């Protein structure tokens, strides 16, 4: 059988006939889809980051030595690290405080420079893999195993590669992984090791290092606490301060809430703008197709005379609109992703938030949603013009176009 002409190819040919108009309409959909897609992706990335829990957000309450409260706050919020120590007994006491669900210690070790290849200052953070709930979620994503022995994980901006060996205080450590950017300078410039490794390193630094360091086994820098359901971090923080002498308990809820509020406001703003943009694109597309139908009346009437049913005409017009809007939508998807990728650094630094893409299924949903959205845009915009076109009386249509 020969090459027959199909409604689809009639639609494509019509779109090609007025290529500039087609491209302009397509671009309108591109802009809207790009805006909506990048906004949704951005927000869901942010929510994903909040959900996974960052270092500072992952713990509900942070317990530090009372004298260092200001420094601790500064370290966590502004990313200016300092080291401070307190008795390990705080950990045991904290575990017994009402409302505490889990507690894990961490050590912050003052900046150490390593000069194997570069001269950089990094911050050392030691954690207890057995009880940790703040750093492990990050590691699991990247390393997929527990950290042991002299293994370390490097933050994003530490200039080392997996497989490198670097010395800290006279002990050689193996880099077994690097972190995704987290958005916190403090975190990105840190190197993560186990508590055991940190104590061993400190102990041997007297013989091996030029600048030895002293960290006794019974010292820790902070206790990170997760509260039980039904307790607010603020209440638990007050209790902790009441029950344990010489500590300061910082509740994180305040921080989370601030971020949530920021995100919420941002989302509303973006949504409002997107809706306005969308309505404009819809009107533009709808009006364009109204004119298209008008100028093609004669042709449509002729198709009817050749036996095209109302449904054929309706389909032809809707198909043209959907071809435009879906191509525009796909272009918007690509454009929106490029936009996000291009501004990733800026987003991270201005929100001081880790930037994590949502998991693949969510990502697929977003992409499918964007395509469906653009398809619906074409469909809705062409509904009225297509209905008008299909209900034209053939003879009237042919005469009017003459």
């Amino acid at each position: 059988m020969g090459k027959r002409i199909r409604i689809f190819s009639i639609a494509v040919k019509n779109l090609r006939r007025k290529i500039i108009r087609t491209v302009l309409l397509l671009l309108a959909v591109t802009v809207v889809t790009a805006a909506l897609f990048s906004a949704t992706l951005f927000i869901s990335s942010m929510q994903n980051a909040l959900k996974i829990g960052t270092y500072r957000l992952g713990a509900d309450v942070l317990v530090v030595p009372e004298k260092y409260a200001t420094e601790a706050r500064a370290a966590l919020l502004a990313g200016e690290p300092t080291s401070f120590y307190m008795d390990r007994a705080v950990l045991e006491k904290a575990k017994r405080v009402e409302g505490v669900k889990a507690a894990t210690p961490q050590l912050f070790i003052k900046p150490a420079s390593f000069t194997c290849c570069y001269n950089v200052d990094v911050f050392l953070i030691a954690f207890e893999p057995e009880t940790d709930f703040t750093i492990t979620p990050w590691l699991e994503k990247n390393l997929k195993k527990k950290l042991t022995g002299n293994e370390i994980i490097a933050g994003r901006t530490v200039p080392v590669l997996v497989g490198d060996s670097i010395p800290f205080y006279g002990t050689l450590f193996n880099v077994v992984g690097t972190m995704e950017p987290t958005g916190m300078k403090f975190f990105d410039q840190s190197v993560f090791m186990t508590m055991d490794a940190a104590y061993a390193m400190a102990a041997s630094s007297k013989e091996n290092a030029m600048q030895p360091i002293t960290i006794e086994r019974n010292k820790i820098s902070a206790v990170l606490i997760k509260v039980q359901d039904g307790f607010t971090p603020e209440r638990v923080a007050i209790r902790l301060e009441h029950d344990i002498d010489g500590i300061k308990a910082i509740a994180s809820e305040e921080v989370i809430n601030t971020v949530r509020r920021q995100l919420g406001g941002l989302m509303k703003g973006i949504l409002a703008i997107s809706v306005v943009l969308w309505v404009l694109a819809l009107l533009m597309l709808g009006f364009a197709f109204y004119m298209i139908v008008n100028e093609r009346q004669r042709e449509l009437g002729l198709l009817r005379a050749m036996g095209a049913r109302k449904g054929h005409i309706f389909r032809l017009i809707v198909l043209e609109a959907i071809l435009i809007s879906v191509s525009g939508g796909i272009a918007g998807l690509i454009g929106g992703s490029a936009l996000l990728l291009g501004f990733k650094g800026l987003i991270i630094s201005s929100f001081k938030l880790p930037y994590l893409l949502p998991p693949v299924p969510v990502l697929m949903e977003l992409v499918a949603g964007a395509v469906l959205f653009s398809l619906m845009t074409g469909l809705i915009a062409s509904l009225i013009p297509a209905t008008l076109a299909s209900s034209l009386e053939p003879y009237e249509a042919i005469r009017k176009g003459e």
Partner: protein
Amino acid sequence: MIEIKDLTKTYTVGGQVSKVVDHVSFKLAKGEIVSIIGHSGSGKTTLLSLIGGLTKPDSGSVIIGGKDIWAMDDAGLSGFRNRMLSFIFQFSSLIPTLTAFENVVLPAAFGDYKEEITGYAKELLDTVGLGDKMNSFPSQLSGGQQRRIAIARAFINRPEIILADEPTGDLDEETEAEIMALFKNMNREREVTFLLVTHSSELAGQAGRQLRMSSGLVSAA
């Protein structure tokens, strides 16, 4: 067999009611060639449109093969236009985005065409003398050539009835004769019924029967 009964169509323009087709009744036997002549504005094109299901009459009926076409639903009427009947329009009726060949096979996009189309389309294009213009677009063809493409298209669905509105309007005498020969041939071989509107007394003379239309009224010429 076509039976037109009491067909009436009026238009109201600026409050003025004009009966463009005025209680017209006549019959066409299968395989007949009938011509309609009449002054400009007498209602010939309107009458063809009523018979071909392109515009709804105010009253009266068009009965083809025992069925009143104006009692059919859209799918029925469209199917009828797609398979039973073809128009040859007074004015250019090609789709500008499609090639000559694509224009000829276009009706197949709207119906269930099981038969071979491509070869037949080429054959028809050869018959109208435009086998070498298959891939030309309408804008690359002369008025007469476009008309001949439209004539080729009218036969693609192997219709039983052809409603032709000035089919040779912009053709020279020689081409007109060829087209008339084609019509006669189709009429003889396939018993295609023709209703021809024409100004050409030559063409009208070749019809088996002539009708005259005047101010919406049809009478034997």
